[in-house]
């Protein structure tokens, strides 16, 4: 065992970023032999069943992008229906009900079923290739995310076909979306469908974060990784923090609609403004969640197309960090007209202006890069120029809208519609079209048919600006958003007619673009490798990319070379961990900042489990929509059982012999490490969970302080008699945390730990029992006032986490009984500890809040 091996086994020093990392090359092997060996381990199963069980990032990334493209086309068709209706002042093309459903679905599809899944798909497809690894951190989670996205999207589309689609606008404001004003299941379709889809967003955020932080090729320091990875890292962290407020809001509104708990009902202590706060806490960061990946594409493409290096790498990284934070301080600028005090308006107006600074830094970096280099006018560059023109205009109208007096004038008019389309189409669609033109040779292994792509660009550009530039004027002349007729305002007719005509021109352009992609995929000539002469690793492989991505993992010496110079050495196994000699899916896990090799991760193979889990969640959603609430317990139990199987699927005998990675380098496998990818994933999930809890605490504070109708009626049930239950529910998770520590101490000593695991399970079970006892007769009716509804939700939150912790404790008990926990291998214990500690912290906070709410009378 060499020194380097010893370092690998005992753990790398995290901040050894400046120390050189030298790893000898593996001897070259026959590339074809490695290819066959790796394909056998990594390929999807054959046939249709292979599509069901696929967990490979290339397959799923393409599937995400393909499905998002289909939804984009459907959303585009809906927009044409809207434009047909508005082409004349008293259009009879659609009735008001259908028009409302169509504009709501257009916005919802474009935001939730196109933009976010498209960026997820691009990240999932590209990141492992760009970072020099073989797959995403959690392939089964990738597959679960895809199926949840597909099923959620199909539920929403089916609702449209049956005329019961959401109709309250894509941001679902209450009280319009409350049961009183929106009877039927239309709003429920949105709340449940979008939340179902958001499972995929959270899944993607977790695995993207972990993949970027822990799977970069050895030697690819955080401060030197491709800018695209920085952008996507910023995006994924924003998704972890940005989506939970919306998930919470959707859950609260669905509970209100289904069970009458009044979170947004003013008459019973609720407040519709709580919805707006929670929605826009997600909604404004969402704009940057969409923009950052697009900016990552631009930062990747522009230097290569200009034959130079990016200008201001460090400034761009700093700008990304600033955007990630500042974008969470803008949400109230969507609520400038609801009656917020001047000073609060000024806070958010200032933050909205400030966020322009990091955006502008990036725009100048791109312009500087083009100025420094020799721009080549290839198809992706057309779209990049289209981006500059369009996004800068959208950004400028954004600055106008950040100024409160102007905002008051333009609020809810077509001016805002024009602005958001300039930002989203300019800032996301144009870069994505550039990305498609850029990576299509990588995806298909074929060249495009010349000429058609350029024609599509011009038609799209002319169509877009013809549609939306004039819409600014329509808005300034006072036309509100979302109206279906404007009989009293003939002065808007020519403006709308012009927008409609150019809208159809734009649609033709998108049709040409899709045709161009189809021709390339099916009729293009075979593409030579690395057509763009790019420096990044995504081109250092055969085209199209093989299932295993790299035959050997790039070593530090491969990172500063052109892609074309390392393709063959990597294919011949001269990098790290060559081939699949153990016939399983393996890649390297590295340290967070310095990317020093830490251990070898072993991935699960193809499985239909993700499909089964998402189908079971889908059954829950459908039963909720049908109003069969008691029956929803069945799919919930099913999900719990499947998650147990999911966990069992990760258990396998731990190989205690070190794994050879390169001459003189051997690393332990993941089972011998405490901080595995799974542990990191749990940390990410708990960050998202913590944000949801913080949003709930905000909701409690907001309603208790600001909402009218407080204090509520006198508390009846909860008095001193309830105190034992509250104390047990609050403190038992803490006992569980002590038990898990005891279990860990036992594991290190080699003693069985059955008693400790059993006590941990018992502690959580007691907490659950205490909550059940409180719910059975010691809590006030949650339908009478928001205070009691909030207490119910807090109790539910604690119960959920006690249940999760109990499940993990039970799993640990089972593993101990089977002898799967050894002194070298802690099994589920590190993950259980994370979740148990989280429950131990949040339960007392929730208890204090619940008791405090009861005292507010």
């Amino acid at each position, binding site marked *: 065992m060499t020194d380097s091996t010893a370092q690998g086994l005992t753990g790398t020093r*995290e*901040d050894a*970023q*400046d120390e050189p990392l030298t790893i000898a090359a593996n001897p070259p092997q026959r590339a074809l032999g490695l290819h066959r060996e790796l394909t056998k381990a990594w390929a999807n199963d054959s046939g249709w069943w292979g599509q069901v069980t696929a967990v490979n990032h290339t397959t799923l990334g393409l599937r995400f992008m393909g499905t998002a493209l289909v939804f984009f086309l459907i959303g585009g068709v809906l927009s044409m229906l809207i434009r047909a209706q508005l082409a004349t002042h008293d259009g009879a093309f659609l009735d008001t009900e259908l028009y409302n459903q169509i504009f709501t679905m257009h916005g919802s599809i474009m935001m939730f079923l196109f933009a976010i899944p498209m960026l997820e798909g691009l990240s999932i497809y590209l990141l492992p290739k760009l970072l020099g690894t073989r797959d995403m951190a959690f392939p089964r989670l990738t597959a679960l995310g895809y199926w949840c996205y597909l099923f959620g999207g199909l539920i929403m589309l089916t609702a449209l076909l049956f005329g019961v689609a959401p109709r309250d606008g894509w941001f679902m404001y209450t009280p319009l979306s409350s049961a009183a004003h929106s009877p039927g299941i239309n709003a429920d379709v949105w709340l449940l469908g979008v939340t179902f889809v958001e499972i995929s967003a959270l899944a993607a955020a977790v695995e993207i974060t972990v993949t970027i932080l822990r799977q970069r090729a050895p030697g690819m*320091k*955080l*401060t030197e990784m491709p800018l695209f990875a920085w952008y996507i890292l910023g995006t994924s962290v924003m998704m972890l923090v940005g989506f939970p407020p919306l998930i919470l809001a959707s859950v609260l509104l669905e509970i209100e609609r289904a069970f009458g708990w009044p979170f947004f009902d003013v008459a019973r202590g609720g407040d519709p403004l709580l919805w707006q706060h929670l929605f826009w806490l997600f909604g404004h960061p969402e704009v940057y969640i969409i923009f950052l990946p697009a900016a990552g594409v631009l930062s990747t493409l522009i230097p290569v197309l200009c034959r130079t290096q990016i200008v201001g*790498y*460090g400034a761009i*990284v*700093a700008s990304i*960090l*600033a955007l*990630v*934070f*500042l974008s*969470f*301080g803008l949400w109230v600028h969507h609520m400038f007209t609801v009656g917020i*005090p*001047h*000073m*609060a*308006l*000024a*806070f958010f107006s*200032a*933050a909205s*202006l*400030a966020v322009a600074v990091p955006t502008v830094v990036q725009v100048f970096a791109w312009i500087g890069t083009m100025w420094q280099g020799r721009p080549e006018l290839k198809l992706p560059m057309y779209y990049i120029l289209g981006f500059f023109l369009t996004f800068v205009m959208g950004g400028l109208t954004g600055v106008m809208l950040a100024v409160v007096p102007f905002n008051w004038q333009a609020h809810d008019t077509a001016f805002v519609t024009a602005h958001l389309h300039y930002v989203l189409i300019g800032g996301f669609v144009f870069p994505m079209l550039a990305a498609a033109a850029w990576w299509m040779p990588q995806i298909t292994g074929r060249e495009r048919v010349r000429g058609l792509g350029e024609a599509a660009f011009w038609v799209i550009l002319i169509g877009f600006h013809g549609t939306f530039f004039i819409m600014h004027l329509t808005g300034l002349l006072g036309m509100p958003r979302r109206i279906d007729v404007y009989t009293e305002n003939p002065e808007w007719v020519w403006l709308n007619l012009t927008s409609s005509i150019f809208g159809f021109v734009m649609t033709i352009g998108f049709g040409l673009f899709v045709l161009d992609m189809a021709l390339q995929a099916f009729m293009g000539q075979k593409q030579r490798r690395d057509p763009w002469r790019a420096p990044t690793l995504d081109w250092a492989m055969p085209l199209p990319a093989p299932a295993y991505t790299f035959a050997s993992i790039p070593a530090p010496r491969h990172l500063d070379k052109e892609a074309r110079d390392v393709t063959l050495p990597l294919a011949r196994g001269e990098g790290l961990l060559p081939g699949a000699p153990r016939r399983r899916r393996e890649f390297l896990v590295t340290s*967070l*900042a310095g990317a020093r090799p830490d251990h070898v991760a072993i991935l699960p193979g193809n499985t239909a489990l993700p499909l089964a889990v998402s189908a079971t969640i889908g059954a829950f959603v459908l039963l909720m929509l049908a109003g069969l609430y008691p029956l929803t317990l069945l799919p919930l139990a099913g999900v719990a059982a499947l998650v147990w199987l999911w966990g069992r699927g990760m258990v396998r005998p731990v190989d205690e012999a070190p794994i050879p990675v390169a001459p003189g380098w051997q690393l332990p496998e993941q089972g011998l490490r405490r901080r595995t990818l799974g542990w990191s994933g749990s940390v990410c999930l708990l960050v998202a969970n913590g944000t949801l809890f913080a949003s709930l605490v905000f909701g409690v*504070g*907001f309603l208790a*302080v*600001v909402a009218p109708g407080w204090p509520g009626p006198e508390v009846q049930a909860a008095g001193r008699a309830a105190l034992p239950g509250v104390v047990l529910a609050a403190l038992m998770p803490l006992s569980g945390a002590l038990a898990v520590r005891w279990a860990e101490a036992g594991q290190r000593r080699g003693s069985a730990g059955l008693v400790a695991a059993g006590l941990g399970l018992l502690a959580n079970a007691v907490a659950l029992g205490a909550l059940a006892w409180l719910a059975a007769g010691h809590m006030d009716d949650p339908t009478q006032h928001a205070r009691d509804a909030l207490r119910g939700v807090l109790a539910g939150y604690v119960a959920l986490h006690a249940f999760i912790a109990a499940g993990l404790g039970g799993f640990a008990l089972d593993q101990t009984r089977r002898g799967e926990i050894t002194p070298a291998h802690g099994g589920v214990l590190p993950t259980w500890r994370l979740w148990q500690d989280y429950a131990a912290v949040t339960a007392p906070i929730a208890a204090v809040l619940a008791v405090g709410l009861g005292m507010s009378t």
Partner: protein
Amino acid sequence: MMWLARALLGLGIWATGFSLVYALHGTGCARGWPEVALAGGVDQHAAALWAGWLATLAAGLILLLRMPRVSAEAGLRHWLPRAGALMGVGATLFTLLPVALATSC
């Protein structure tokens, strides 16, 4: 991990301070703090908001002063934490400036 945490600390201080001041503002308006006069003719609301702003600014400045000075040539790893602290102080100054300029409720 520590390096990344240090790089994010300055902006984290801004986020915490911004949330704190906004929460103080909302609470104060709802509870009638502007009507509660303190010594020197300052009302309770203004005092709370100024305290929140200045505390955030002080925390950001302390962080900035504790960050080692490095030149731009030192490499991203060395100057990003300081840049993060600087961005945090700048954002605190600008976005909470309304405490000094605007009427509170």
